């Protein structure tokens, strides 16, 4: 061990049974893939971690990689900008583990895409009796305005972020699908860049798959669905504006892809074609990566009071003159109630068994199921179907009797607005605590998939970590943090973005004899001495 007086941050780390720890076995020995990492963490020690943490906060504040939180605990109080909470201990996944996840995700996303297409056209899955139409029609995000429209290539879910959790038995389960405007990829990229800068020594013994090709993946996908020759397609990123909490990501992606970042005032539809207002007059936009919710995109078809939308955009979309990613109306597939049917979708559309399982979920519209759930409320998680970001979620085992009673009343009034799920024993990963010692904290995973001509998934994704001891809520808006996610190279070239950088000898430059100045001048200087 080191010569220093301090105790290594990771000494005496013990996983918390019955939860699976991803870096350590139950008895406290590091897992094989984690050994080198743990050793480096020992060497780094608490001082090193604290120092790196300080540098991280300074860098993030300076670069504006922040997010806003409400001041006080009750949600009131002035919003404050905080540096994005990146925890310095990465999560490590083996190449093999990742391959299984990838296959499962690709399968699931394909099925969800089929479902969206089906719902707005033939409704075969409904005719088959697998999904009740009333459930689809009552989804708040079911978009009647786009009924009958089929986008190029039949792709609706261009960007998908399906949230995964790892159960204590080691299996991966999908906890939630996100196919409307999933966000967080910019944090994945910035986290990796930051880690490389702050704690490069942790990477020493590892070959970690790169993630920085995401913008290129997205750009290719957008170009491939655009209604024009690929090389000529004008792609734009559409943002609601700087007031939006995810604005940083919108600007980041536009910059990385080298495309314009537009707001509603820059866009106009004439004759069912979408244009950008430029200094050279109107220029056509062929593909739009939009980061607005459906509700706001077109005051003629959705919310009439939306100032963030472009009148006539749905017309252009219907006419096929512009590609929109993600397509309008995809929210019908990531509705929490529809989630229960995804395994059926996989079987129905793909004829395959699901590779990734759902978490057991209960639809409360059935009175028997409702009664059963109310009885066991202290053992379940309940979520409102209309919210996202962890809002309104109640975790039975963590709630007191008063809260449980209140929930029983609320749910009974509108059972169709809630679902209940078994509590998943989320896995843990060592996380830097306040005193720089490492403690097990629960994590989930949001990989990012791009669906263009095929489905590409960036290795790893955003690992979100609950920073409070015992907490299962990982959302950043509710006090969560994130970790860099490493997928290790293991010889499988499957999703390599480009050839590896070869170790070659640089060429010799014989005329650089004196290291800086070339011949003549040097001689003159010598002569004048």
């Amino acid at each position: 061990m080191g010569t220093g007086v301090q105790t290594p941050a990771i000494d005496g780390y013990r996983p918390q049974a019955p939860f699976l720890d991803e870096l350590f076995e139950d008895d406290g020995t590091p897992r094989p893939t984690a050994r080198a990492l743990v050793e480096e963490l020992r060497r780094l020690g608490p001082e090193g971690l604290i120092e790196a943490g300080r540098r991280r906060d300074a860098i993030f504040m300076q670069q504006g990689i922040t997010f806003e939180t409400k001041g006080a605990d009750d949600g009131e109080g002035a919003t404050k900008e905080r540096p994005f909470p990146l925890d310095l201990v990465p999560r490590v996944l083996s190449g093999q583990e990742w391959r299984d996840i990838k296959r499962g995700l690709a399968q699931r996303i394909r099925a969800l895409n089929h479902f969206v297409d089906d719902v707005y056209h033939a409704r075969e899955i409904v005719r088959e009796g697998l999904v009740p139409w009333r459930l689809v029609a009552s989804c708040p995000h079911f978009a009647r305005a786009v009924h009958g429209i089929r986008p190029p290539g039949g792709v609706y879910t261009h960007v998908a972020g399906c949230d995964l959790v790892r159960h204590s038995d080691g299996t991966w389960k999908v906890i939630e699908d996100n196919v409307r405007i999933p966000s967080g990829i910019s944090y994945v990229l910035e986290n990796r860049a930051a880690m490389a800068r702050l704690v490069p020594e942790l990477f020493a013994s590892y070959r970690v798959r790169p993630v920085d090709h995401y913008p290129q993946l997205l750009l290719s996908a957008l170009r491939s669905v655009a209604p024009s020759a690929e090389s000529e397609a004008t792609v734009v990123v559409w943002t609601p504006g700087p007031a939006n909490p995810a604005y940083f990501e919108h600007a980041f992606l536009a910059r990385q892809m080298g495309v314009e970042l537009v707001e509603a005032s820059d866009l106009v539809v004439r004759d069912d074609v979408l244009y950008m207002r430029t200094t050279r007059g109107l220029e056509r936009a062929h593909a739009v990566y939009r980061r607005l919710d459906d509700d706001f995109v077109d005051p003629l078809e959705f919310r009439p009071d939306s100032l963030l939308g472009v009148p006539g955009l749905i017309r252009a979309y219907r006419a096929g003159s512009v590609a929109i990613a993600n397509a309008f109306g995809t929210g019908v597939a990531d509705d929490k109630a529809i989630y229960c049917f995804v395994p059926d979708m996989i079987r129905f559309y793909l004829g395959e068994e699901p590779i990734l399982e759902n978490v057991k979920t209960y639809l409360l519209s059935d009175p028997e199921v409702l009664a059963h759930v109310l009885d066991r409320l202290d053992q379940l998680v309940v979520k409102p179907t209309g919210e996202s970001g962890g809002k309104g979620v109640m975790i039975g085992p963590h709630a007191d009797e008063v809260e449980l009673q209140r929930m029983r009343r609320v749910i009974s009034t509108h059972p169709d607005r809630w679902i209940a799920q078994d509590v998943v024993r989320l896995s843990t990963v060592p996380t830097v605590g306040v005193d720089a010692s490492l403690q097990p904290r629960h994590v989930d995973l949001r990989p990012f998939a791009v669906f263009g001509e095929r489905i590409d998934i960036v290795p790893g994704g955003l690992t979100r970590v609950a920073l409070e001891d015992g907490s299962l809520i990982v959302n950043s808006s509710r006090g969560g943090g994130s970790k860099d996610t490493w997928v290790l190279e293991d010889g499988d070239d499957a999703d390599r973005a480009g050839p590896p950088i070869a170790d070659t000898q640089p060429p010799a430059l014989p005329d650089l004899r004196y290291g800086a100045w070339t011949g003549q001048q040097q001689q003159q200087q010598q002569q004048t001495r």
Partner: protein
Amino acid sequence: MHFAIRFLTEYRYDAPVTDNLNALRVRPATTSTQRCDEFHTRIEPEARVSRHLDYFGTEVLEFGVPTSHEQLTIDVRARVVTSPPPEPPEGSWESLLSPAYVDAAGEFALPWQDQPLLTGLDDLHDELEADSPLETLELLCELVPDRFEYRPGATYVGSTVRDLLEMEAGVCQDFVHLSLVLLRRRGIAARYVSGYLWAAPEDHGTDSLEVDTHAWLEALLPSSDGHGEPVWVSADPTNRRLADGETHVKIGHGRFYSDVPPVKGLYMGGATSELNAAVTMSRLDPQTSARA
């Protein structure tokens, strides 16, 4: 009956406007009791009109005027033939639970988005107790015009059922919204209908009337024997009767008004607009209206 319908809309703007986008739901539908024989649109300034069927099957006409203009004229003409509907079925309350009914009802049996728990609704609900869904429907057509005064100006296009209950007055749109809530509360699927009403009394010698677009409803009633297909039956609470299909010319239906507005539009420019709209219905002699 044979009708010629003319729907003339004129907008005048107090300053030039551009990018004037509009969607029209004005064409009479073709159904089992109605047929639209002719249909013409004229827009000024000239604009290319595109058509499609929306989610509810209503024909939508869309156009845009990008260049600067100070007035917009939309002139729509149609010829339509209507025939009387069959007798409404007298199914039972139990049949509302049958798979055939649930299937046919679809989303029209779903409660309102945020089912208003309003005082006054409960009383009305109780008064609609009857032996069959058809009877409830008939009672409804009496109850609503009895309790609420038809008064234009009491409400506006964005009014809610709550407004109607408070004002105790409203127009056809409000009467229908309230009726839909009450029917769905009893498990009867119902939908909002927009159309034209030939409002002349039978014995009146008129053959041409100026009317407004009208709102009524269609309720899904189970078949008399409980096994056959349920039937959509029109009812007009504003006019106190089950709609007699001949005088009611349907344009389309939806869950509520904003699913089938006759004219919807937006323009760019700070000008205020002045609207003049007139719908003229003319009764035609079957001989003269049957053209090639």
